């Protein structure tokens, strides 16, 4: 019993078919509980008023935006090293979800920034690096859709993902150096004394769990679709041959 067993599409389909409903229902439950709790049953912040509640969408989306890219990096590495097709397809399936998460983080941030900072957009390091991350997602998705041959596309996009990761990290430090920040520092770290108050913290955790499960559900669903699309392609190819 090893993780690599699930490189077999059939086993992957069987397992993901069992996980998918759990993740989907869990995501729905966590999101409803987290968002309703966060929006209606937490006090307003003494300075930010009710705008603070954007945190229940903004923070989980931003968290997912980065972690989905990281997941794509890992699956791309697995494809490059061990050439498991499911891995490449999972990276492909995750990319649009990650792009949407980045977009959600940017837009909710703008909605929050308008009343709080007095501007929709500032060239702050975090905002800028998210914009760059969004561009990387766009390039990655565009490259996938531009290439006809699936294996070539998987190879090229995975190398783009590896190179892009290096440059995304580099850009992150470059913009840090380039402009001073308006965005507040981390307030959810496990190793720091001063964090966001518990009143906001627990609904936020539920909401984050909801976003993670939502991503898992969407990613599994999309990967399963990709696998089946491949099968259909193979069947059609066999038909035309015979």
């Amino acid at each position, binding site marked *: 019993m090893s993780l690599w067993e699930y490189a077999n599409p059939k086993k992957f389909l069987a397992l993901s078919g069992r996980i998918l409903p759990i993740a989907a229902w869990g995501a729905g439950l966590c999101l409803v509980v987290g968002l309703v709790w966060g929006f209606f049953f937490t006090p307003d912040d003494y300075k930010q008023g009710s705008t603070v509640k954007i945190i229940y969408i903004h923070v989980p989306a931003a968290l997912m935006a980065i972690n989905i890219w990281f997941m794509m990096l890992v699956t791309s590495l697995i494809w490059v090293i061990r050439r498991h097709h499911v891995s490449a397809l999972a990276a492909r399936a995750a990319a649009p979800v990650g792009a949407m998460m980045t977009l959600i983080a940017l837009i909710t941030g703008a909605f929050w920034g308008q009343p709080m900072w007095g501007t929709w957009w500032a060239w702050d390091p975090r905002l800028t690096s998210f914009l*760059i991350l969004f*561009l*990387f997602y*766009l*390039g990655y998705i*565009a*490259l996938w859709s*531009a*290439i006809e041959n699936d294996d*070539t596309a998987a*190879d*090229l996009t995975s*190398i*783009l993902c*590896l*190179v*892009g990761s290096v*440059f*995304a990290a*580099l*850009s992150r430090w*470059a*913009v840090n*150096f*380039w402009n001073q920040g308006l965005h507040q520092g981390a307030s959810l770290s496990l190793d720091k004394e001063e964090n966001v108050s518990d009143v906001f913290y627990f609904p936020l955790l539920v909401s984050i769990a909801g976003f993670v499960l939502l991503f898992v559900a969407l990613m599994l669903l999309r990967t399963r679709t990709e696998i089946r699309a491949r099968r259909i392609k193979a069947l059609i190819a066999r038909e035309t041959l015979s």
Partner: protein
Amino acid sequence: MIALLIRDLRLALRAGGGFGLGLAFFLIVAALVPFAVGPQAAVLSTIAGGVLWLGALLACLLSLDRILALDWEDGSLDLMASAPLPLEALVSIKALAHWLTTALPLVLAAPVLGVLLQLPQAGFYWITLSLAIGTPALSVIGTFGAALTVGIKRGGLLLSILVLPLYVPTLIFGAELTRRGIQGMDTSTPLLMSAGISFACIAVMPFASAAVLRVNLR
């Protein structure tokens, strides 16, 4: 390797387009900026460094699809790939040829165009220096992009979407170096970072370019 370099240089010089085109584009961008933002010297001189950097970057970008696409179309890329020269060396030479034919003229032309944009006196030195240090990274990263999209028909737009985000660090440090130099601030950090990015790209990117080229030639 030298023969290949000479061949590429000759092709760029003699087979029309390519060589002068980037330079002409750079000139036009620099000439259009005052029409867009107005001819006030105060405005122009503050943005001159950034505009020159952006113009050079776009001029580089425009010429990228010529690096490999022409050789791909007429099949000479296959011949070069089957030659005893490793692909890593091939893409390095291609990047060098691109730098010599496209980026180096831009570096030399930048101070001249700086006159049009009211670049401050101190800026002439810094724009030339920062472009000279930064453009090798643009060529090498661009070669990676060209290798990535070589098999795609009409991949030009895709190429720019892929390559522009990769240009961000180079642009930030290059333009920052120019800005700080003009204002008389300490320039050592952006100078070292630009140089570091360029050298790291020259050292590492050929492996990535060769890897994607191998996939595309399969």
